């Protein structure tokens, strides 16, 4: 299979402009003849649906939530990056591009990332015009902050709820188009399959979650904006409903899945407290600007803290190990997410963890409060401290927070070209659901940027390149492929309902999640990955023999919804492990313990990096791994898209 990324030729900073000029146009009278399906109503899907409708296309938008306003983009806290250089601190499109490429550990495409940085400017303009209430200075100008270790202030924010404010803006744009009649909205409706007719994506099969009715919808193109697959790990910062079903169904119908092993583990989440735990709560990364991360130097002290015999404040300075400040003197507590996460795991594995389960480290504001005063800290983090106290019962003004890493964002996703079209013609993929812009690791405040770039500015310009080759309405639901898919979906739903075994859907999800977290989590080895690849098929077999899905198909049935999602995670988990096993290097969100720098490496001896840092192998692995589905339980087939670097030179990452 030839994977053509279709990156336009020419100088990096002119590729997007030139591509827009070279792209096809569809005249206004014809646009209304084209039907487009958008699955997902978060920042990527909602903005795409609204904008495509503004352009004159007929859009059908689907989401599983009861309202498009509840998509999980809403939970993003920190902010959104844009290279506006409003702070005059030396930012530029090129700098944002470079930071994003470097942050992604040189595993993304130059052309895509540069476009993202260019479009970032337009996003802020658009959102402000919509009435998104970003933080402002007294003069009426927009305020910015530095975020996630960036050396410039380029992050726009709305207190701790930037995601909600951007999504409300996007949802209002969508509401405007629903009112205007350009978008037909289907809330509480879940996509259960993709219909590929004569080689092109021409529709979807959905289930009305309230009535249980399963129906087919045809269109001239299909857009998936269905988010990431972090919930494969069961516990994550994702919403409970986030799932991989839409993307995985498309994968089973021929779409290649790229780089699934790039999973981002966020360092600052509230630790797990027990087996009943349903999700993990993220505490904004901005806390690392003032909080100091530490564990006791001795295991005995840690043990006493775990048992509640000793309080954090009673541990003297000389007995504390501020391990990030020690290992990375220049970046300290602000080092990148993967480094902060892995370091926390290392100290906890060494028996120095402080949470009752042993899996937690301190994030301490004692010094910040002493230096800046309680009022200043409260102004910056008041709502976060309050949230922490509500969940944990501890007051962070008086005692350090406990944090531990959790699965947060997934960089991998369906493979797409520069037009955001997958290898299945007509199937376009946006936002977290595609793989395209973050490489092996995503920088803070870049997810919102990518979702909105894809939806507001990229897809509206590129989708015509596909549509112009199609006759509108050529395929309808009377095509035999629709009937066949409907039959398959009905069979699958019925077989889930007929098992009537002994175990709940959640119990299988928890078991799978634990396998993936232990064996394909923050640190991976060939042994751990092979163990998971042995175990997952057994869990899947037991699921199909012994799961108990209560209720019927013709009603609101949340157990049935979960069962369908978990069934797909049980297949997807294997793909994740295959990719992690094949990529015998460490990069970004993929850390292979057997590929790290040691004292003996010349790069360590000459001070370019430090022991324990991720070791990339650019000569062998400078490519996108795009996997082709071959059948349940069968090893997928690997296709490679070579990454070409014309503008930047991949370097060794060092945050020392």
């Amino acid at each position, binding site marked *: 299979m030839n994977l053509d990324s279709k990156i336009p030729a020419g100088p990096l900073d002119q590729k997007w402009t030139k591509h827009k000029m070279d792209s096809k146009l569809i005249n206004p009278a014809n646009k209304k003849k084209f039907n487009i399906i958008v699955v997902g109503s978060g920042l990527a899907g909602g903005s795409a649906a609204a904008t495509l409708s503004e352009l004159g296309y007929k859009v059908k938008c689907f989401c599983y939530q009861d309202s498009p306003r509840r998509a999980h983009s809403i939970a993003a806290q920190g902010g959104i990056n844009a290279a506006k250089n*409003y702070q005059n601190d030396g930012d530029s499109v090129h700098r944002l591009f470079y930071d994003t490429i470097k942050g992604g550990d040189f595993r993304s495409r130059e052309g895509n990332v540069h476009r993202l940085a260019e479009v970032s400017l337009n996003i802020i303009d658009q959102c402000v015009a*919509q009435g998104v209430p970003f933080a402002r200075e007294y003069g009426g100008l927009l305020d910015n902050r530095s975020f996630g270790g960036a050396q410039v202030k380029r992050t726009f924010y709305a207190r701790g709820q930037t995601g909600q404010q951007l999504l*409300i803006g996007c949802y209002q744009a969508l509401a405007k188009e629903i009112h205007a009649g350009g978008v037909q909205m289907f809330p509480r409706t879940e996509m259960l399959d993709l219909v590929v007719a004569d080689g092109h994506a021409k529709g979807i099969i959905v289930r009305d979650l309230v009535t249980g009715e399963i129906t087919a919808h045809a269109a001239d193109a299909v857009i998936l904006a269905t988010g990431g697959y972090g919930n494969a790990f069961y516990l994550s910062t994702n919403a409970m409903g986030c799932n991989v079903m839409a993307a995985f169904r498309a994968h089973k119908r021929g779409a290649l899945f790229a780089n699934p092993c790039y999973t981002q583990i966020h360092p600052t989440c509230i630790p797990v407290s027990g087996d009943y735990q349903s999700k993990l709560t*993220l505490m904004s990364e901005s806390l690392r600007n003032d909080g100091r991360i530490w564990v006791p130097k001795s295991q005995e002290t840690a043990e006493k803290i775990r048992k509640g015999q000793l309080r954090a404040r009673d541990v003297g300075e000389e007995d504390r190990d501020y391990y990030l400040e020690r290992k990375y003197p220049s970046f300290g507590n602000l080092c990148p997410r993967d480094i902060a996460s892995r370091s926390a795991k290392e100290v906890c594995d060494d028996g120095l963890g402080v949470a009752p389960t042993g899996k937690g480290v301190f994030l301490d504001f004692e010094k910040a409060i002493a230096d800046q005063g309680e009022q200043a800290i409260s102004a910056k983090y008041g709502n976060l401290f309050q949230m922490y106290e*509500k969940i944990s019962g501890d007051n962070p003004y008086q005692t350090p927070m406990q944090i531990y890493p959790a699965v947060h964002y997934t960089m991998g996703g369906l493979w797409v070209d520069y037009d955001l079209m997958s290898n299945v013609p007509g199937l376009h993929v946006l936002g977290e659901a595609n793989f395209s812009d973050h490489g092996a690791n995503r920088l803070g405040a870049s997810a919102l940027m990518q979702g909105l770039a894809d939806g507001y500015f990229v897809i509206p310009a590129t989708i015509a390149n596909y549509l112009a080759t199609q006759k509108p309405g050529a395929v309808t639901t009377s095509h035999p492929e629709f009937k066949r898919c409907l039959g398959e979906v009905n069979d699958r739903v019925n077989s889930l309902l007929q098992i009537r075994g002994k175990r709940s859907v959640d119990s299988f999800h928890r078991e799978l999640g634990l396998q993936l977290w232990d064996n394909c989590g923050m640190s991976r080895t060939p042994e751990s990955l092979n163990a998971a690849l042995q175990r997952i098929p057994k869990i899947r077999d037991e699921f199909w023999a012994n799961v108990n899905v209560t209720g019927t198909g013709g009603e609101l049935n949340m157990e049935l919804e979960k069962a369908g999602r978990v069934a797909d995670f049980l297949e997807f988990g294997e793909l994740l492990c295959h990719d992690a096993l094949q990529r015998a290097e460490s990069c970004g969100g993929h850390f292979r313990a057997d590929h790290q720098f040691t004292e003996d490496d010349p790069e360590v001896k000459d001070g370019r990096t430090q022991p324990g840092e991720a070791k990339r192998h650019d000569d062998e692995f400078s490519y996108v791994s795009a996997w082709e589905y071959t059948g349940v339980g069968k090893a997928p087939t690997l296709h490679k898209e070579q990454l070409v670097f014309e503008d930047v030179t991949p370097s060794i990452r060092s945050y020392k």
Partner: protein
Amino acid sequence: MSSLNLTLKVWRQAGPNAAGSIETYQAKDIPTEASFLEMLDIVNERLITKGSEPIHFDHDCREGICGACSLTINGIPHGPEGGITTCQLHMRKFSNGDTIWIEPFRAKAFPVIKDLVVDRSAFDRIIESGGYISVRTGSAPDAHAILVPKEAADAAFEAAACIGCGACVAACKNASAMLFVSAKASHLNHLPQGQPEKHQRVLAMVKTMDNEGFGNCTNQYECEAVCPKEISADNIAKLNRDYALAKAHDALV
């Protein structure tokens, strides 16, 4: 870690047209560290193991921002704590032996779909009728071309913090949606970008609100008391002023 033994009185209703009733469940050994929804997860896991249908309730983000969760706990939407959503309520706030009443958000405009799940799509229809600024993608001027005084930006943000959960409606004896509608209108009406469509927006949203079957506001302030985002009832006063102005404008122009 300590645990609780509780008695739950839960509203069960098989479907939109079925008659509902309160059912009693014993919830034993509930960890105090669990959230309220995790407590229901535990109860449901036990129901499923026995082959019974689990209790249906809406939830998604479980971190207090998506606005999906919507339980009336001991008669109070989102429970007794104040300033939080149901998913942020933790079992350490309850005592061993407690009886807890769990009901859906009740209002004529929020029909029950199943058990504790209600249909809040009326809120979406209110927004669709005018709760937006009509700006096409790509037509926006540079973000700094529009200066917004910090006071206005902050006031807009305070109103925009509404998560659309509907607790305000469930708490009101009139099932009025005035806090929701006023928050949504205030967000845009405070901003310079929102001025051109201000009158039209207010009239359209209020009209849709009335048509959806929400009741009138009689200044009970129950809405403000239960709002998980602590949206101020001052927004209602502003909406009333904006509405009067819009009506006058409508009559004169």
